[in-house]
């Protein structure tokens, strides 16, 4: 599937939902009450209202905005597996949002008092099932992309008998650190100047994110360890005995893993703070672990050397 067709597959459901929603809204504009019911409680009764124009603009803005976001993400992911997941989630989102928006217009038609509008709860089951089904269909239509080629393992660093060797390097993501720091600062400011509890959540969230904006990657007699530079745990640890071989690869965070952070893909896990050079480790469990870090060739060579020596010793 070409890049254009992948992006189109993501954009079309959002476009269709927007056209259907706006078309239906405008066509039945005069049959809608001045203020329409836009939120419904569990028993189906309306419990929040919005003016007609505001509801129309808000609905269109949400659909168009998310449509643009998912289309851009899908086209940015290119040919890789991330594009497939992006498109599937995007299509599912379009259905899950478009269905209740259109339904809201329908239940508000031809009534005088918006409080009379009703939206039974079973529609939630329909929209969730519909969203999942549409997402699954998009997943099938996209088809699996070409499988990533296994990278050739790096040469093994020869180690003398009794020699102790270790490699360590930090990788800091400024792209993650600055927004996380800003969120924490906003939270701290709110907590100090205004609502104590409203500020607490962004503060904790911002601090937790900035703690993982910098990680230290260590290769030593214990194997591979990836941990935050400030917190001892949680950490990713692969003991030498579980390591088959290591190599240096080029990865695209968005393209190969669909984003940044700790990512899980079928048979592949990664700690991605950026795109580019990464250390790739294959384990005896058949999994590949990828960690973005500079000078990964040295790390891979040392890991191979240590794993070889460990295997010789345990024989």
């Amino acid at each position: 599937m070409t890049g254009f067709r992948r992006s189109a597959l993501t954009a079309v459901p959002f476009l269709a939902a927007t056209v259907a929603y706006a078309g239906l809204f405008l066509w039945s504009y005069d049959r809608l009450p001045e203020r329409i019911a836009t939120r419904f409680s569990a028993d189906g009764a309306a419990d929040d209202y919005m003016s007609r124009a505001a509801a129309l603009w808000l609905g269109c803005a949400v659909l168009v905005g998310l449509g643009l976001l998912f289309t851009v993400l899908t086209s940015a992911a290119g040919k890789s597996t991330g594009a497939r997941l992006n498109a599937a989630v995007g299509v599912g989102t379009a259905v899950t949002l478009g269905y209740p928006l259109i339904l809201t217009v329908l239940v508000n038609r031809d009534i005088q008092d918006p409080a009379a509008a009703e939206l039974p709860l079973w529609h939630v089951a329909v929209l969730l099932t519909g969203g999942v089904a549409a997402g699954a269909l998009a997943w099938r239509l996209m088809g699996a992309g070409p499988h990533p080629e296994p990278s050739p393992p790096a040469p093994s660093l020869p180690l003398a008998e009794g020699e102790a060797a270790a490699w360590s390097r930090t990788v800091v993501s400024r792209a993650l650190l600055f927004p996380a720091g800003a969120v924490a600062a906003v939270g701290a400011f709110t907590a100090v100047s205004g609502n104590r509890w409203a500020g607490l959540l962004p503060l904790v969230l911002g601090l937790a994110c900035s703690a993982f904006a910098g990680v230290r990657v260590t290769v030593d007699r214990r194997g591979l360890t990836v941990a935050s530079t400030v917190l001892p745990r949680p950490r990713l640890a692969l003991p030498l005995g579980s390591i088959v071989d290591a190599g240096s690869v080029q990865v695209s965070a968005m393209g190969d893993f669909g984003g940044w952070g700790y990512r899980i893909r079928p048979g592949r896990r990664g700690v991605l703070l950026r795109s580019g050079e990464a250390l790739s480790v294959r384990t005896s469990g058949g999994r590949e672990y990828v960690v973005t870090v500079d000078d990964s060739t040295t790390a891979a060579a040392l890991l191979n050397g240590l794993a070889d020596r460990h295997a010789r010793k345990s024989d």
Partner: protein
Amino acid sequence: MLFRVLPGSPVPLGEQIAACVRGAIADGTATPGERLPSAREVADSLGVNVHTVLRGYQRLRDEGLIELRRGRGAVITSAPGGAGRARLTEAVHGLVSQARELGLTDQEVLTLVDNVLGSAPVTTGPDRDD
């Protein structure tokens, strides 16, 4: 940063650790501003005493190659000419070990260096900056 030490070697472990960092600065593998792992981390990784690692780090600080700051750990100096300094220090280590092999006394080595210093013209230029 790659650390390799051989516990059986006649060279003290702290000196071996310092040599690893010095070599990395000299050949550009370690860049100015890069943070070294803490002494405790290196000690755990290599299975050596933390004081041994600290001795190595202090040696590097005395040579003007790293900065040791409380709380921030060890950072490769960002002062200009760090790589050149590291290469020069390596050369001095080479000079000393060669002199030892030849059986020269410390005084003889110092006189040798002093004589060369005395006859070499003093130049200050952009050469220092690399």
